[in-house]
Each structure stands twice: as C-alpha cells, then as structure tokens.
C-alpha cells in the first residue's frame, strides 16, 4: 500500500524550565533549554516538534503554554503539546498559545470522552492519543501506563487504541516504556501490533539510537513517523544524515527548501 511521506519528529520532554531526558521515562537528566533546542532542530530540517511536560500530571499543573508561545514566535512547523492536559480548557490554552495538536494520555484513560470533545472542537487531526506501552512479561501483549510509565492502567494497548480511534483520536504517539532512553532500537512488534489494527498515523517513540533503527521501524513496524530524543539531544545523529540514509534506502521523506534561511 502506498504510504504518505514518513515524518521525522523531535520529541522534547520538559521539566520546566528545562529540556530533560530520561531512561525508561525515568532517571531524568537536564539536557538544556527547550526553546534553543527546538530552534536548532527546526533549522536542521525536522518535520515536527513534540513538547511533553514530563511532570505536569504528577503535580497537577501545566506550565508549558509560555514555552509554546515563545517557540511559536520562531519555529514555523507543526507543534504537538502534551503532558498534564486535563480538560478542554487546558487544550484551548495550548491551541491559543500556538500548538497545532495536543497529545493526551492520563486524562483520556480517566475520562475517554475528552477524546471526542477535542476532536469535535479542533478536528481529529489535532487529537493525538499518547500511549505509554509496557510489554507483559513473556507475552506479545502490552499494557497502557500513565504518569511516565509509573502507573499501570490495566488496559490492553491495542484494545485501548482501537477504542480511542473510534472516539476520534486522529493520531497515536506510541511510546515504548521498555525501549525509551535505551537507544537500542524502537519497539517493532509493538508498532506492528498497533499499525495492523488502526489506520490513523502512528508516531513510534522510544529507543532510536542509530540510523538502522529508524529504517526497521518504518519498514517492519510500518511506523508513519519516528519521534526522536536521545540521538538529537546528545548530537549522535543529524536530521540531515537520517533523512539522507532513509532516502538511500527507498523511504519517502519530505524535502525541505535548503536554499532559504530558516
């Protein structure tokens, strides 16, 4: 089946005011200033940016709107914002601050109706369901977690995503808790399990550490987009190198105009 172009996405986890990076979504280290990094990835040719407030749910707050507003002043690509969004009012705040899409995990698990509310108000393409998936020991099944992989929900990942798409989720941000921060490759079986049952775009997140990891996620996992953190934050790979490698391996990615200043 012909696919739309694969998107390369920079994922920035935020613990205000810092950009952080964890291992298995925990053990957090400060990496830098999120706005500076976002500008750098934008100038480097990334297709989209995802901001996730890593501690918002934990402290029942959300502090990302100022950062989103600042970033929207000089980063002119689609921006997804998530972490701790609990109500349609929180979603309104982010959209007014310059977000194009919101990603919701905990609030959707607790009250799935919010998925439909956001989709009705902003269109399903703006409603990204964020899922933190952890493999059940010895099985080809995954359980959905909330609060950065800390808390079990008892929900089967594939079943939950199927329900959420019916409710209006237009895109899935699928994070493997097991692979996150390890830089040893993305979770291909997880991605296969999800992409084989839903036809909304799936952004696979967690574990990208080398060029061939992205290729495997696209070719074998059927991922529509790859979210990257570690390899970009620690300057292991450039966006240009990833793009060139994928093109050389027959993957369709976007071409951006290199002749015009960012």
């Amino acid at each position, binding site marked *: *089946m*012909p*696919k*739309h*172009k694969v*998107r390369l996405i920079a994922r920035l986890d935020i613990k205000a005011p810092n950009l952080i990076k964890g291992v298995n979504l925990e053990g957090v280290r400060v990496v830098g200033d999120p706005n500076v990094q976002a500008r750098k990835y*934008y100038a480097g*040719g990334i*297709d989209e940016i995802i901001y996730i407030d890593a501690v918002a749910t934990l402290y029942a707050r959300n502090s990302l709107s100022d950062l989103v*507003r600042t970033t*929207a*002043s*000089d980063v*002119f*690509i*689609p921006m997804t914002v998530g972490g701790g969004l609990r109500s349609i009012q929180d979603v309104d705040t982010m*959209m*007014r*601050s*310059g977000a*194009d899409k919101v990603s919701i995990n905990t609030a959707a698990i607790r009250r799935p109706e919010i998925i439909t509310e956001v989709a009705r108000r902003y*269109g*399903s*393409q703006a409603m990204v369901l964020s899922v933190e998936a952890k493999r059940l020991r010895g099985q080809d099944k995954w359980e959905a977690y909330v609060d950065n992989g800390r808390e079990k929900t008892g929900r089967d990942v594939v079943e939950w995503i199927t329900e959420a798409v019916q409710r209006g989720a*237009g*895109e899935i941000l699928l994070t493997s808790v097991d692979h996150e921060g390890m830089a040893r490759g993305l979770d291909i079986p997880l991605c296969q399990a999800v992409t084989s049952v839903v*036809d*909304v*775009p799936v952004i696979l997140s967690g574990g990208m550490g080398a060029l061939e990891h992205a290729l495997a996620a696209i070719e074998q996992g059927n991922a529509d987009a790859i979210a990257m953190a570690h390899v970009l934050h620690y300057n292991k790979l450039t966006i240009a190198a990833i793009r060139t490698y994928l093109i050389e391996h027959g993957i369709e990615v*976007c*071409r*951006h*105009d*290199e*002749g*015009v*200043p*960012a």
Partner: protein
Amino acid sequence: MSRPAVHICDYGSGNILSVERALEKVGAEVIRCTSPEQLTDVRALLIPGVGAFADCMRGVRERGFEAPIHQLVEQGKWVLGICVGMQILATRSEEFGITNGLGIVPGTVTQLPDTAPDGSRLKRPHVGWSELRRRSQPWEGSPLEKIDEGTAAYFVHSFHLVPDDPQDLLADASYVGTPVNAAVRKGRVFGVQFHPEKSGRTGLAFLDGFLRLVETDRG
C-alpha cells in the same frame, strides 16, 4: 528596512498567532482587524481560515467583511487566502450541502476523493507534508518564485478548491498519487491550501515572496 503592512481579516476563525508571527519573521508589520472599519490604507490583505467552510463564510458576513473584501479586490489590492481562507474565495463549496463563497476565484470547493489512483483507500483529512508542483499559472512573478518545484509544504484539509478555469491553478501537490490543489491565482488574489506559517522555510519564503510583490506592486 521596513516592509509593507499586512492587514489580517480576523473574523473569528480560530488561532492566527502563528501566521502573525510568520509575517513578522519576514519583516511585515501586522495589523489585526476585527472589524471592517480597521481596513484603512490597505496594501495587502490576508484571509486566514480553519474549520468548516460555512462557519468561516458566516463569520466573514456577520462581521461585515464581505463587501470590503470585494472592494479591496476591485481596487487591485494584494490578497492572500490561507486554507479555508483560500476556499471561501471560491464561488461555492460542497461541504455539508452547497454554501456560496465570495466568488472571487470562480470554482467549487469539493471533497478529496476517498480512493487513490491505485485503488487503495485515501485517508482524509490529508495531513502532512506534500511536494508542490507547477501548474498552468507561472510561478515567476508569484509568491512561489523563489521556491524550487518539489519542495514540501504542510497541509491539513479534507476539501480543496477546483477552479472553473484550470489556468487559475498555480500549484498542486501529490497526496499518495492523488492531485490536491495547492495554490490558485486570479490577478492579485492568491489562495493557498497549505499553511505557509507551518511549512518551515518554504512557508516563510512564500510569505516573503508575497511581500515582495506588494513592495514592488507589479504583476
């Protein structure tokens, strides 16, 4: 160097922060107009728009922008419609029944097909980056002048404007093999289906090109 001011027709169609910032980035002064009285000394008018066609047309009419927009077009002012702001330039739309548009670019807004040329199902909305291709209207002397054919722009839509006269088409894009109309021109009126304010440097180059036309006032 100070560049021309762009008046934005703010008729209540959602967030225009990004497009304001993008215009400022390329050096324009932005004047946000929530009522027609603010449309004074206009050189260039930007019409944004997201959501449903009928809602946008209602917003334009209820806020009294319809007649002033026609006047500005007749006076030869530069106009740029973005997304549904482009679609409402058309004669009519087929979204949720027939709704009349401004009729500035003769044509009909129709839904994208649900099947790709190879028979596979086409996902709607069309969301993401697609490469721009030349159509009848020359890119020279248009905001696309400095953009290479094949460069990608960012789209979010389920409908597109099909002009009655194919000569009015500036650019289209291929969405999994299905042609999607991306840019139209009628005199000094331009419409783009993609979002220049979300299309990275390509989008900024487009807005810069639009300002250049306004500055030189030729074309």
